[in-house]
């Protein structure tokens, strides 16, 4: 698998061109993802602008500590993913496999913490729908809108994490079988782009969902 001949697809002139095309294709996919999430961020922007008080109040019901821990977990997973790409580039198979496994563990930890947060929201009747209840009746509808956006945005993000963990598992298997070499590591590199993109989405979700009411001192927490 390692010699340049066997990994070069016949429609490319050379490995450089093949690699360039792969990266470009992945970035074009990521641009569609930016706009996919962008629709939700646009909806968030409009409703936050229309109902700033309710959004700040509702955000106080989110667990900032768990959100911050998850942010750190995801940043750690981005580091291990970057190191996995490095491992494949220098042909260090053990480093590659170890870092891919660490990334999976961190990704699973993120999802576990997210699951706990969701469970709390169900217990507190903060999931939009007929069971939704809110301590301040005058803000109820607008707070429900906040939680609709919260679940849609973090849910779509979590779905991307689940898919990412699945792809990483396939990569571990392939790396174990010796599929990758310093000549050919495109799947590791492109999965890295995807994983870091998902990290970037969370980097925006964390302050926009968890931190917008903090300066109110948590006084209005019900």
């Amino acid at each position: 698998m390692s010699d340049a001949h066997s990994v070069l697809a016949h429609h490319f002139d050379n490995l450089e061109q093949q690699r360039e095309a792969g990266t470009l294709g992945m970035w074009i996919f990521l641009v569609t993802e930016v706009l996919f999430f962008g629709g939700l961020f646009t909806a968030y922007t409009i409703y936050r602008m229309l109902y700033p008080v309710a959004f700040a109040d509702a955000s106080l019901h989110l667990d900032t500590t768990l959100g911050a821990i998850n942010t750190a977990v995801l940043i750690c997973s981005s580091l291990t993913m970057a190191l996995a790409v490095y491992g494949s580039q220098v042909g260090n198979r053990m480093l590659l496999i170890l870092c891919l496994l660490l990334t999976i563990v961190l990704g699973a930890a993120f999802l576990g913490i997210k699951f706990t947060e969701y469970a709390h929201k169900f217990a507190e009747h903060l999931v939009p729908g007929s069971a939704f209840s809110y301590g301040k009746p005058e803000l109820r509808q607008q707070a429900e809108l906040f939680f609709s956006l919260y679940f849609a945005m973090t849910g779509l993000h979590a779905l991307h994490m689940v898919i990412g963990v699945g792809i990483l598992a396939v990569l571990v298997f392939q790396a174990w079988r010796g599929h990758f070499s310093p000549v050919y590591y495109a799947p590791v590199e492109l999965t890295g782009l995807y994983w870091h993109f998902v990290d970037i989405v969370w980097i925006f979700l964390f302050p926009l969902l968890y931190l917008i009411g903090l300066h109110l001192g948590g006084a209005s927490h019900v």
Partner: protein
Amino acid sequence: MSEKIVSTKVYIVIFIALLILTYVTYQIALIDLGWGNTIVALAIASSKALLVALYFMHVRYSSRLTWVVTAGGFFWLAIMIGFTLSDYLTRGWLTAAGGR
């Protein structure tokens, strides 16, 4: 493209910077700056995103074509949010024709 291999030292420096910025964004969120809170939060988030894109995603070492595609994505996002807001923010400015 990223034929260049980024050293592990660069990755670790960026990693530490990202953790520090996360801590800073949390601490600043505790202080009441009015709408300034949102501006600071978005500025820090954008800086973090830029660090991830440039170093972890190797954009800094990628071809000009990749730069254009990447920047194009965020340009379209700006169009979507900007034009939508230009509608919502200006709805109260004009009365319907003949309505004065």
